[in-house]
């Protein structure tokens, strides 16, 4: 841009100098010795004014990253040699015990060891309600401690903290290029020589064929072409929108990997959810308890939970948790045996406890007729029925289910409104899977998928010509997240999942998925508007400046207006990108 403005204004200025010093030369050639000092000066004033506005607006596009950097606390209060000391945050080491008082910023990431409090994590996760913290809970650096004092052990410092990683991710995203930008990039690289060539041609044509005074016309159109051409608008169209869009996402706990992810996300038509831990809480719990043959519910639960004490099955954990909640005293099981794929067997209080599925009961010849109907009901409701038998006789039935997250149904509805088909992927059997899908309002279910087959299911959907997003967490999901057109990792997630995904939602709330897709749609819309404007402006503006309208309507563009148009053009592109800051992401 500078080249064009400099050549244009210098030409007008030098011409005027010659016309001032040697007017007789022009008179002798039958030309008018016009001067354009004012034009040169005004063009420069207008362009500089435009630049000022543009620089201010451009500064705002990177506000989100500046805000994130500003979150970093400066000092930490740690306990060394039994004494509390304030040290610069850079000097905190992994393993240090850090003390945080109410109202203070948590300096680094760690695990609470002593004390209780509520922590405002909104600056990192976008979650507006303070989160309770107790010993064993993780705390994130840069979040604000609200109510109580606590001590925690530092687990991540320096560039390993969640904040540092978020900043790095956002910086990378803002430095990345969106494929949509390619054409603009190619044009930008040829822009200056093409415009200079076009301006010279304009000069020659006006000089040869223009009306009297042709030299003045030739000079004015030459300058106008040089000035009106605005490569800035083309160059700013995409990066400013990507910067504002990714920054806006980061403010709401949505980390987008880059321009390419944004662009693919807006074209999605199918979204696959992993069930466990994504749609559901990932922590099974007891939903129903049935007791027969004069056994009490407590008795069933006590024996079942005691037998499960040494098992490592997630369903067992749910039973134990429920027993503890009901303050039932558990015993140590004897002769524990896990029967792969069927259930468990153990002795509790010298009674023989058998816990498992229908197959196990039938194998052992236990009469379960009385419970079978109830079990079927549970299964068709998406719950897993577990038969309990005591001393070889049917005693009861425990139904365990992994409940849907509260936000799931609402999130799925939003996604449907965005026109996406939702698919649920799970290892559960068809019956259970379909029951949960019904509750969540999902029509297409892919049941009985082993973790290692998730990738194939995504590939299959892609081979149907779909653009697929995969939402998941955990290491199991990493290959599927990478295979999907857009991988969306939720929750604080593992680092592996974050690496493999295109979008990371810091908060485990599924509504963030809809927000992320909406944000990508809005950002791409702004980029398209910007690119259209930038192309249209140059394609229409340059010929008008060259005087194509003059032969037909007698209209010739004054270079001063050309400079105003040019200044307005780049400012308008940046301002349009800044509109993204006002997008409301309802999550």
């Amino acid at each position, binding site marked *: *841009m*500078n*080249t064009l403005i400099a050549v244009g204004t210098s030409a007008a200025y030098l011409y005027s100098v010659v016309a001032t010093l040697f007017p007789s030369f022009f008179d002798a*050639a039958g030309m008018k010795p016009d001067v354009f000092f004012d034009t040169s000066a005004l063009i420069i004033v207008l362009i500089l004014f435009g*630049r000022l506005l*543009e*620089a201010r607006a451009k500064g705002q596009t*990177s506000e989100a990253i500046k805000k994130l950097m500003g979150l970093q606390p400066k000092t930490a209060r740690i306990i060394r040699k039994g004494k509390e000391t304030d040290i610069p945050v850079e000097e905190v080491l992994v393993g240090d015990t850090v003390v945080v008082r109410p109202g203070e910023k948590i300096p680094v990431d760690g695990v609470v060891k002593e004390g209780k409090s509520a922590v405002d994590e909104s600056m990192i996760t976008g979650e507006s309600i303070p989160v309770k913290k107790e010993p064993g809970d993780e705390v994130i650096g840069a979040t604000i401690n609200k109510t109580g004092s606590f001590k925690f052990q530092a687990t991540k410092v320096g560039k390993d903290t969640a904040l540092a990683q978020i900043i790095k991710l956002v*910086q*990378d*995203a*803002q*430095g*990345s*290029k969106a494929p949509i930008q390619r054409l*603009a*990039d190619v044009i*930008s*690289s040829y*822009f*200056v*020589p093409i415009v*200079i*060539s076009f301006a*010279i*041609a304009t*000069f*020659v044509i006006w*000089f*040869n064929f223009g009306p009297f005074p042709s030299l003045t016309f030739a000079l004015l159109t030459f300058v106008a072409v040089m000035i009106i051409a605005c*490569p*800035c608008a*083309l*160059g*700013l169209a995409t*990066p400013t929108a990507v910067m504002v869009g990714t920054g806006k996402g980061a403010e709401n706990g949505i980390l987008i990997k*880059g321009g390419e992810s944004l662009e693919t996300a807006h074209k999605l038509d199918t979204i696959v959810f992993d069930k466990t831990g994504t749609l559901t809480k990932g922590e099974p719990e007891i939903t129903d308890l049935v007791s027969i043959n004069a056994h009490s519910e407590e008795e069933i639960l006590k024996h079942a939970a005691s037998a499960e004490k040494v098992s490592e099955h997630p369903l067992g954990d749910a039973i134990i948790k429920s027993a503890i909640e009901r303050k039932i005293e558990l015993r140590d099981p004897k002769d524990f045996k896990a029967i792969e794929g069927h259930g468990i067997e153990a002795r509790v209080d010298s009674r023989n406890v058998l816990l498992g599925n229908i197959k196990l009961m039938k194998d052992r010849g236990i009469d379960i007729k009385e419970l079978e109907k109830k079990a079927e009901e549970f299964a068709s409701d998406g719950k897993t029925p577990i038969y309990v038998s005591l001393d070889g006789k049917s005693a009861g039935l425990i139904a365990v289910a992994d409940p849907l997250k509260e936000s799931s149904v609402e999130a799925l509805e939003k996604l449907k409104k965005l026109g996406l088909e939702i698919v649920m992927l799970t290892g559960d059997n068809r019956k259970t899977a379909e029951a949960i899908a019904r509750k969540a309002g999902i029509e297409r279910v892919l049941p009985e998928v082993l973790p290692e087959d998730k990738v194939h299911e995504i590939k299959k959907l892609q081979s149907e010509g779909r653009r697929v997003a995969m939402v998941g967490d955990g290491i199991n999901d990493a290959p599927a997240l990478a295979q999907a057109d857009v991988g969306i990792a939720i929750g604080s997630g593992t680092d592996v999942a974050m690496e493999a995904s295109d979008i990371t939602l810091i908060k485990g709330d599924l509504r963030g998925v809809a927000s992320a897709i909406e944000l990508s749609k809005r950002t791409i819309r702004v980029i398209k508007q910007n690119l259209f404007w930038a192309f249209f402006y140059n394609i229409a503006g340059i010929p008008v400046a060259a005087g194509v309208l003059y032969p037909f309507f007698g209209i010739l563009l004054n270079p001063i207006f050309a400079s105003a148009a040019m200044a307005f053009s780049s400012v308008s592109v940046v301002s349009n990108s800044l509109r993204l800051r006002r997008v409301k992401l309802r999550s």
Partner: protein
Amino acid sequence: MLAKLIITVFGVLLIVLVNWYFFFSRRKSTSAGVKEGGIQEVKIIVKGGYDPDVIVVKKGIPVRLDFYRDETADCSDTIVFGDFKIRKPLPAFKTTAIEFTPEKEGEYVFTCGMGMMRGKLIVR
């Protein structure tokens, strides 16, 4: 008549010259020297363009490019290495270091924030 002929010939020559300068003139390439600590380092002056604008580095060795922005014109206020996901502001009259390790051979374009000013990084 003569004036018209002169202007036409001069104009055509000028167009040829401009396009030759932008597209065909040979750019001087600079190879990075490996400094202590095994870092390849090149100093680049930013003033209406990049000098040098063709930089040759070796694959697999960390690279440090010191950009000194010798102007206030805001065209050059950002440097972008799209292939390396780097977008960094260049404050005027200061040196800004860009550091990365190129792992693949090839030619990588670096530009200003708007893609107008260009340079090339050749990794061998």
